[in-house]
């Protein structure tokens, strides 16, 4: 419907401005059996993004799928020089099925960039991230930013089998060191990941931890972070209606100053302090 692209005076807490814009699909291809890469031709003004931010996509209505609400998607890549916005998504339900039907040239209305992204403090030289599944999409831009700022980044990529380690090339391409762990090889267990991270810490190569998604990973990294006094951040998900902070549907609980507080994933997040986050 609406395709005006109004200037967002109240900015998202982290950095930029929010716009509702009509984009064009450049390509929308299968990456492997489960994931798809959507590349949009997007106006410059929405490409001033931060790693960890997301867009709210108005998925099209098709004959079989009629998603009603928008769908939140992490920014997998933003390239102002090419005018491109990338999303990596997994087809799970009505909205993503409708996304999967988009063809080059089709229009897609997006709202963003939204939310608060990852931070990289001045003195964090060595960053370590642990990603699994579609969490790769959320963490990929962090690697890009780390390189831009000249930080060293280690990515532990976890997956079911080696074949689905799709972003390894991407992380490598951005100069990150990549460690893969898979269910198939039996290397993706929490103990093994803990051992890998411990090894890095032992040689003084972890200044900050990043992850997103799973509860088990959150607990593990919270433990490691607490033991060694290493700060960390986690990107969280929650059902969203407005994506802007108005409806309060996307709250999660956080531990802060010995109290439980509720914060909106779309507005105060989706990136939160690792120690404050609560498993769910």
């Amino acid at each position, binding site marked *: *419907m*609406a395709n*005006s692209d*109004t*200037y*967002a*005076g*109240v*900015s998202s807490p982290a950095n930029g*401005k*929010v*716009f*509702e814009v009509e984009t064009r699909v450049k390509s929308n291809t299968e990456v492997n059996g489960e994931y798809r890469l959507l590349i949009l031709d997007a106006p410059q003004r929405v490409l001033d993004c931060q790693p960890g931010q997301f867009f709210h996509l*108005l998925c099209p209505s098709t004959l079989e799928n*009629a*998603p*009603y*609400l*928008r769908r939140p998607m992490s920014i997998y890549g933003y390239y102002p020089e090419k005018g491109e916005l990338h999303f990596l998504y997994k087809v799970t339900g*009505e909205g993503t099925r409708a996304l999967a039907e988009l063809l080059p040239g089709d229009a897609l*209305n997006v*709202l963003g960039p939204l939310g608060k992204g990852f931070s990289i403090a001045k003195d964090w030289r060595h960053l370590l991230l642990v990603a699994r599944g579609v969490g790769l999409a959320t963490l990929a831009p962090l690697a890009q930013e780390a390189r831009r700022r000249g930080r060293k980044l280690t990515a532990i990529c976890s997956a079911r089998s080696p074949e689905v380690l799709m972003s390894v090339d991407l992380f490598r391409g951005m100069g990150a060191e990549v460690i893969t762990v898979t269910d198939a090889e039996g290397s993706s267990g929490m103990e093994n990941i803990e051992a890998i991270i411990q090894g890095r810490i032992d040689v003084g190569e972890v200044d900050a931890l990043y992850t997103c998604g799973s509860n088990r990973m959150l607990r593990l990294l919270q433990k490691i972070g607490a033991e060694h006094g290493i700060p960390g951040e986690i990107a969280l998900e*929650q*059902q*969203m*209606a*407005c*994506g*802007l*902070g*108005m*409806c*309060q*549907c*996307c*709250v*999660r609980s956080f531990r802060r100053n010995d109290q439980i507080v*509720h914060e909106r994933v779309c*507005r105060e997040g989706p990136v939160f302090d690792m120690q404050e986050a609560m498993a769910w």
Partner: protein
Amino acid sequence: MVDLTTRLGAMTLKNPIMPASGTFSEDLAGVIDFNTLGAHVTKTITYEKRGGNPTPRVCEVRGSMLNSIGIPSKGIDHFIQHVIPYYRQYDVPLVVSISAHNADDFARICQAISVPGVDAIEVNISCPNIEDDGKAFAMRPSTTQQVMTRLRGASDLPLWAKLSPNTGETIEVALAAQEAGADALVVSNTLLSMAIDIQSRKPKLGNLMGGLSGPSLKPIALRMAYQCSKAVDIPVIGCGGISTVEDVVEYLIAGASAVQIGTATFINPTAMPNIISGLEDYMIRHGIADLTELIGSVRDDDAADSVVFMETAP
């Protein structure tokens, strides 16, 4: 030039478009120009600080949504210190939505919120009244009348009573609100609904059930707006499922003097300003000089009262 202004009792709005409570906040100010709106309506607040309902708080049903946000509230002090001053920068009436679980608390917040900067109070009486077996005030004429009478005594500001579709006594409730001194009716809030995820067999909302809003609600809320505007003399503000200019026109023809837009803003954050300019275009195209030519112009002359006021599908 067409005239978009509309009268709501003593108030005059520059146009009939305003947000529905709970679907609007300062966060939207970046995406649209708040000065374009007919009024600003804030999320319902309670006197005390409270949390909301468990998550998930929203889910989707075919072409509409359910929510069980509840009324998380930072309490009235925070609201008076931070929210009211924020809205003073705009030349738009501020309508504050309030609620409480009994008449005393309702009167207390009503009085406390009657401060400069607030232009009208919207009374969300669709929430459970814990003194009356948990039914919402707005489900019965008696409880509506009781609470509205208390509120009338607690404030000199215009009071808008927001009705609930969860009743078989729409007209009696509307009359009771008017009787007790309401200055306008907002018709309506959401309709109690449910959805279950058949894979997990869990309710899709953390709170089991929630309110239906969006396009599916429109024919129901429109019917209520029509019935209320036939029954009462105070203005009716339509609300429910509006997402296009045509929807607005339909509510105006049914008898609404203004409308509130809720869920549509989640789908298109720019829905309200787009509808305002679209309404202007519509009026120009159809040679309608001002809204009074539309409001209540439904051609129902042949209809018997018994039909207008029926409360069950025939």
